[in-house]
C-alpha cells in the first residue's frame, strides 16, 4: 500500500451512510429503489443507517396487503436486513405519532427518536441519500 490520503478498499475506509426514507411504499418506486440500494451497499461494508420519516414510516408497517395495487409486497425484505448486518434503523417519533402508529406497528426493531435527534443523526453522517 502506497502512502497518501487516497481512500481505497485496502485501507478499509468506513463512512457513515444514511438512507432517508420519506415516501409511502407504493405509488412511487422510491421505497423499493432505496431498499435495493441498501442491500447492494451492504457488500461494501460501510456503516449503514436507515431512517424513516414522514410517510416513509409506512414502509415498514406490519400487515400490508398489496393485492389491490397489483404489486408484490417487499415488506418481508426489510426483515432480511439483519442478515446483511444492517441493524441501525430509526423512526422519527413525530412522523410515527402523527399517523397514529406506535413502535409495535413495525416489522423490524427500530429506534424511535424525536425530530431534533433525527436532525443530529443526519448531521453526524458522512453521506445522506434521500428517497
Amino acid at each position, binding site marked *: 500500500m502506497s502512502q497518501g490520503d487516497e481512500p481505497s478498499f485496502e485501507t478499509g475506509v468506513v463512512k457513515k451512510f444514511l438512507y432517508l426514507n420519506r415516501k409511502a411504499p407504493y405509488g412511487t418506486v422510491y421505497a423499493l429503489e432505496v431498499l435495493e440500494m441498501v*442491500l447492494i451497499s451492504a*457488500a461494501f461494508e460501510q456503516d449503514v443507517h436507515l431512517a424513516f420519516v414522514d410517510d416513509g414510516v409506512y414502509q415498514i408497517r406490519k400487515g400490508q396487503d398489496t393485492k389491490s395495487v397489483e404489486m408484490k409486497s417487499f415488506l418481508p*425484505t426489510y426483515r432480511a436486513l439483519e442478515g446483511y448486518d444492517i441493524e441501525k434503523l430509526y423512526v422519527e417519533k413525530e412522523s410515527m405519532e402523527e399517523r397514529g402508529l406506535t413502535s409495535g406497528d413495525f416489522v423490524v426493531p427500530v429506534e424511535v427518536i424525536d425530530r431534533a435527534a433525527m436532525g443530529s443523526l443526519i448531521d453526524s453522517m458522512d453521506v445522506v441519500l434521500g428517497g
Partner: protein
Amino acid sequence: MSYEVNGKTVDHDEEGYITEIGSWSEEIAKIIAQAEGVAMTDEHWEVIRFLREYYNEYQIAPAVRVLTKAVAKKLGPEKGNNKYLYELFPYGPGKQACKIAGLPKPTGCV
C-alpha cells in the same frame, strides 16, 4: 428464450434465470443444472431447498455472504463456508445456485 420441460416451455432471461418464480419445478432445476454442468446430489438439493425457503421468507435472493452465514446458522458451519458451497456450485453459490433454484439473480450481484 425458454427451457422445455415435459412439453411445456418456461421462459428465462439472457443469463438463464427463469422469469417467473412460480413456474419452477425440480424438473426445471435439473435442466438448468445440466446446462450449468452441475451434477445434482443430495447436498446440492439441500442448498437449493434452503434458497427457496429464504426467498419465500424474504422475497429476495441473498447475497453470497449472507447466504453463507445463513447456511451456517441453519445447516452448521461445516456447510456454511465458501469452500463447501463453491465446491457444490463452482460458478458461485449466489449466481449459480439461485439460477438452479429458480430465483432471480441476487440483488447486488454484478
